[in-house]
């Protein structure tokens, strides 16, 4: 609390204190390295592992961009809240829709959806 007061009283106001371009270079290199990593792991056949790995790498890259290129790490609390809440609502939308789809009677699903797996063994695509 006292720390925050001291910060806001300092002459450089909150979001505008400077740090060198070195940080931007480091983030840029990390992002390029992660791009290479996601291409490399994306072409491996990891079965069900591919999707979580790709999503994890993308989330790490996005977090780096938001925190350091977009300076959310130094932003006012209200700005952080706005952005985090928008992501939260996107997740709620995903969870709501998949909560519905995954618990439906298969008869009520769109026709011609051969890969809908009621049990993990049953997803044999007819064209294979």
């Amino acid at each position: 609390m006292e720390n925050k007061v001291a910060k806001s009283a300092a002459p450089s106001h909150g979001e505008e204190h400077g740090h060198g371009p070195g940080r931007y270079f480091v983030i840029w290199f990390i992002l390029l390295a992660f791009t290479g990593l996601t291409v490399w792991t994306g072409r491996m056949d990891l079965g069900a592992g591919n999707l979580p790995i790709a999503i994890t790498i993308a989330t790490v890259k996005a977090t780096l961009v938001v925190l350091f290129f977009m300076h959310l790490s130094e932003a006012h609390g209200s700005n952080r809240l706005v952005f985090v809440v928008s992501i939260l609502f996107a997740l709620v939308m995903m969870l709501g829709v998949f909560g519905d789809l995954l618990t439906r009677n298969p008869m009520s699903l769109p026709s011609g959806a051969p890969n809908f797996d009621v049990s993990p063994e049953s997803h044999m695509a007819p064209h294979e």
Partner: protein
Amino acid sequence: MSSSEAHAAAADHPHNPHLAHHFDTIEKQDHAIRLGMWLFLGTEVLLFAGLFLGYSVYRHFYHHTWHQASRTLDLGLGALNTVVLITSSFTVAMAYYFIKKGKTARCALMLVFTILFALGFLVVKSIEYSHKFQEGALPGQFYHFHEVTGPGANLFYTVYFLTTGLHAFHVIVGMSILIWVLARVLKGHFSPTYYVPVELGGLYWHLVDLVWIFLFPLLYLI
């Protein structure tokens, strides 16, 4: 009581032409501007979240076909565009850094690089699109691509064109904003005490990069 405070605050910054009359101080004005921008970016996240949701649902139903279909996209061009956008995000962050230091010429140079990268992205994307048009890998009823024929195959390309199309539209908008910002930088409108348009143009550009960071693995790699 607040009006006397406002007058006192205005007396502290009598010469700031960028302070609108309805804000007490430039700090409050900047805070409001940034909050407004983040609110807008929040709506952009939700706009794309709808398309990502559509992607997730159809991928769930048709994941064998979609796996085949994603292999027909050009991974090399997709990866190249990822590198281009990440680098443009870096250059626009550097433009922001330089304008805060008062280095107008370097800021302008970084913005020029960013705009060129944006153009490069669109050129690569149009090459990919023209391949897809030739192959007939088109959305909905226009689909006549013979390599992928399972149920849900045309849906992959519908989602592909919708997501990358909306993203490409954002690239065009972002590029236009950065051209406008560049023109104002060259006219000397900005200084270490006033650079909010450079910052907000950069924020929009980073969002374009953010969306692509998710689109690239979901479309090209999964």
